[in-house]
């Protein structure tokens, strides 16, 4: 079956599964998981060059031919996020940026005001902005109007694995979006990824669910299949839910 590519700005991707590299025990585990996932776009964070954990991930992603999606994780203000995005573009030579401005460490929920402010500045500066946002249909529209190339509502807070807590909000966001909607954060297992696609999301971004699974490579393969299954089901058009039974065999 022909798969339509995911288009984000000028970037075309055949895989609708975006993987985050955070949380992997080591690079060998990460490599096997990335290959099994089939992903073509993968997040990295920007940190001081002498910080631990910097070695190797760039070379790994280049060797695997996976496009980089730098993020602004750890930023608390629009100004910090804008500077981090500029540094990422300079260091990595990509216009893609996953904009995330966290309000506090306990929830890691996006700060809507700082996120919107940063999105306007970055879009005006020529970035292809993928904005991490709350599952708020109004904010998603505002981010699109600000020039974001994709909006990325959370299913649940980062790293919780709680799945999609408000499926109706995700459907509302999808129903009005003119840019791709990527379900980001909260995915715990394969059925969550499938649900995201069944709700009409264009892609899924996850990391913890794979990198911290008991067997990351196997879970990556599960997520790959889950995203494909969910998209096929969405396109196929599910049957309506009914209260009473409806016989599937002819009456005797």
């Amino acid at each position, binding site marked *: 079956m022909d798969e339509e590519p995911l288009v984000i700005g000028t970037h075309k991707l055949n895989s609708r599964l975006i993987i985050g590299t955070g949380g992997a025990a080591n690079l060998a585990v990460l490599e096997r998981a990335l290959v099994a996932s089939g992903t073509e776009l993968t997040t*990295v964070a920007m940190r001081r060059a002498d910080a631990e954990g910097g070695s190797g991930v760039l070379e790994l992603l280049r060797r695997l031919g996976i496009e980089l999606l730098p993020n602004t994780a750890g930023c608390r203000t629009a100004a910090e996020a804008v500077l981090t995005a*500029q540094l990422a573009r300079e*260091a990595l030579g990509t216009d893609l940026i996953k904009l995330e401005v966290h309000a506090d460490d306990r929830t890691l929920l996006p700060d809507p005001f700082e996120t919107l402010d940063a999105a306007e500045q970055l879009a005006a500066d020529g970035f292809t902005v993928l904005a991490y946002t709350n599952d708020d249909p109004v904010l998603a529209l505002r981010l699109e109007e600000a020039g974001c190339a994709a909006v990325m509502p959370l299913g649940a807070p980062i790293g919780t694995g709680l799945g999609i807590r408000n499926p109706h909000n995700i459907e509302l966001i999808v129903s009005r979006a003119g840019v791709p909607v990527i379900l980001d954060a909260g995915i715990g297992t394969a059925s969550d990824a499938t649900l995201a696609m069944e709700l009409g999301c264009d892609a899924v971004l996850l*990391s913890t669910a794979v990198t911290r699974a008991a067997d990351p490579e196997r879970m990556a393969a599960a997520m790959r299949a889950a995203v494909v299954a969910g998209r096929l089901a969405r396109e196929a058009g599910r049957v309506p839910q009914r209260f009473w039974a409806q016989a599937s065999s002819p009456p005797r």
Partner: protein
Amino acid sequence: MIQIKVNGKWCEFPEGTTVADILDAMGGARQGVAVAMNGVLVRRGSWVGVVVPAGASVDVLTAVQGG
């Protein structure tokens, strides 16, 4: 000698030190890194020419696993 804060640590450098000199002192990596001085991006093409003043804060960033 002057004091420059490199990635959060005060270090001594001779007067006239450029951004490129600081990168050399850190091991010389040029690929996949970016530099901010006092919270403002210093473009790659300016590394050789930009002199870092005493008391400046220079951050050298690269990509790590995350997100």
